């Protein structure tokens, strides 16, 4: 149980160096004459690996916190509408043509995430009830989805449309240090908020009334979650596009290795999310595909959907 975190850290310590060597050009550490090895490592692979770690950690931790908050193992960070909000921001940057400017795309996307966060905290109200909050999140998600579809259908040029559609299928290809500097600090900050919320999430295990009787302020908890999930997921979408299922699957895989309290799930989920995304991104890079590279978002959905189905079937058996 207490060995989960060291185990995941060991996995990361193994996976990170390996991921730096793998790719279209394999780098052999014992034969250092590979051309441009230093450039490939420092300018392409290292930022990409760090980005995978940051985005994966954010999604994993946000998923763990969301499941704890909603007391539901099928909850996903996307439910709050923050990821769709961020995606809408990015889509608008393509639509307006600003996406070409440096920093514009992630900035638009972060503004979208912030908009969704602000809207959530406005709607959620003073009572701090979980049900109303969730419905508000779903409403924001579907509104952002509709606006995105609208933007795509009214795209000014076919080129913009294809850019948007490709971007929405999240990926970490062609990213640079710039994206790392955006995603890493915001993700860390978000993780901080989620960790502050952890104890309150534990109390919520006993239901809303009991949690309040244990001193939990539901409104404060909501704000911490909006900030935590907003920053981690918003930063992730801003640099990588939509990457689904990580936030759903990772807490599930990790939960049996912990004492099942939400608070003991957040850090292991962050580490496992980082590991999953790093490995998945490497596999995408290495897999030979005619048209180039398999998009990371698609790959994870291909793995994630059957996994989700498996979960549902297992739960159904549990209920029977």
């Amino acid at each position: 149980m207490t060995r989960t975190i060291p185990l995941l850290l060991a996995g990361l310590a193994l996976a990170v160096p390996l991921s730096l060597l793998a790719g279209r050009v394999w780098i052999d550490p014992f034969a250092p004459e590979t051309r441009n090895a230093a450039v490939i490592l420092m300018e392409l692979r290292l930022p990409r690996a760090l980005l995978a770690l940051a985005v994966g950690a954010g999604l994993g931790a946000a998923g763990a916190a969301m499941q704890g908050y909603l007391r539901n193992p099928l909850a996903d960070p996307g439910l709050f509408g923050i990821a769709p909000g961020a995606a809408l921001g990015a889509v608008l940057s393509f639509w307006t043509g600003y996406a070409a400017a440096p920093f514009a795309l992630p900035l638009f996307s972060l503004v979208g995430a912030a908009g969704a966060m602000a809207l959530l905290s406005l709607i959620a109200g003073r009572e701090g009830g979980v049900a109303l909050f969730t419905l508000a999140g779903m409403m924001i998600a579907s509104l952002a989805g509709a606006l995105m579809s609208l933007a795509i259908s009214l795209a000014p040029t076919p080129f913009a449309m294809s850019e948007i559609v490709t971007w929405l299928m999240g990926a970490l290809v062609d990213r640079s240090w710039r994206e790392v500097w955006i995603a890493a600090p915001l993700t860390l900050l978000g993780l901080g908020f989620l960790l502050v919320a952890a104890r309150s999430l534990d109390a919520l295990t006993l239901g809303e009334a009991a949690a309040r009787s244990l001193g939990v302020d539901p409104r404060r908890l909501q704000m911490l979650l909006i900030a935590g999930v907003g920053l981690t997921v918003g930063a992730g979408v801003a640099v990588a596009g939509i990457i689904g299922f990580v936030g759903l699957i990772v807490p599930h895989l990790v939960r049996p290795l912990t004492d099942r309290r939400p608070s003991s799930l957040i850090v292991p989920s962050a580490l496992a999310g980082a590991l999953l995304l790093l490995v998945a991104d490497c596999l995408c890079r290495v897999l030979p595909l005619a048209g180039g590279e398999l998009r990371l978002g698609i790959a994870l959905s291909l793995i994630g959907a059957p996994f989700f189905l498996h979960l549902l079937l297992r739960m159904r058996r549990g209920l029977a």
Partner: protein
Amino acid sequence: MLEARAVTVRERLEAVDAVLRPGEVVAICGPNGAGKSTLLSCLAGLLAPDAGEVLLGGTSLSALRAYERAQAIGYLPQSPEVAWDVSVETLVSLGRIPWRGVPRAEAQGAIENAIAAMELHELRHRPVSRLSGGEKARALMARVLATRPRWLLADEPLANLDLAHAATLVAMLRRQAGEGRGVVLVLHDLAAAMNHADRVIVLDRGRLAADGTPAQALAEPVIERVWHAKARWLGEPGQQALSLPG
């Protein structure tokens, strides 16, 4: 002392006064919709009254910080849930949440005491999903005890428990009162209130209908007036049963 002063909640409670003392087991009784759970929620500080106030040792609950209130008043809701399949020990440890920055040894001591008080030693590593109804009720009560609250408030703790388990839980709660805690229970079962409480508060449509010893507050005329039933008490004091002529 935990004291309700003219506590009013719109459409549910009207100017209810109640004084609760440590060391006492108090039962709150009344027909469905009388406001029992509402009063308990007010006493626990979970529901702010529209008028009136609840005082804890002379201080209004609304003036206390949430964690201070939580350290003093333990509350068990009517249909407690446990969202994750944690072990009994982990469940009990959740009762320590209001106490931040307390030395680990002290926290562990409180958890061990709670486990001992509810006789859960052999079940401590068992997942909650594999407990029987009676075991689960004890584990949930141990969670409240782990806080070491001065007040123990429980909403229908005996519901869904069979005779033997209900008796065990009542005995355990009596022992808590013996240690100086104030115990306040919403009880549906009038015989349980009659036999096990030191005092009974009867609510009727949001108003205080009776407050006194079980024999006074649950006397046959009170039952007839509040529950509209001509019931009779049978048996010896401490083992009385309520008989309803068909």
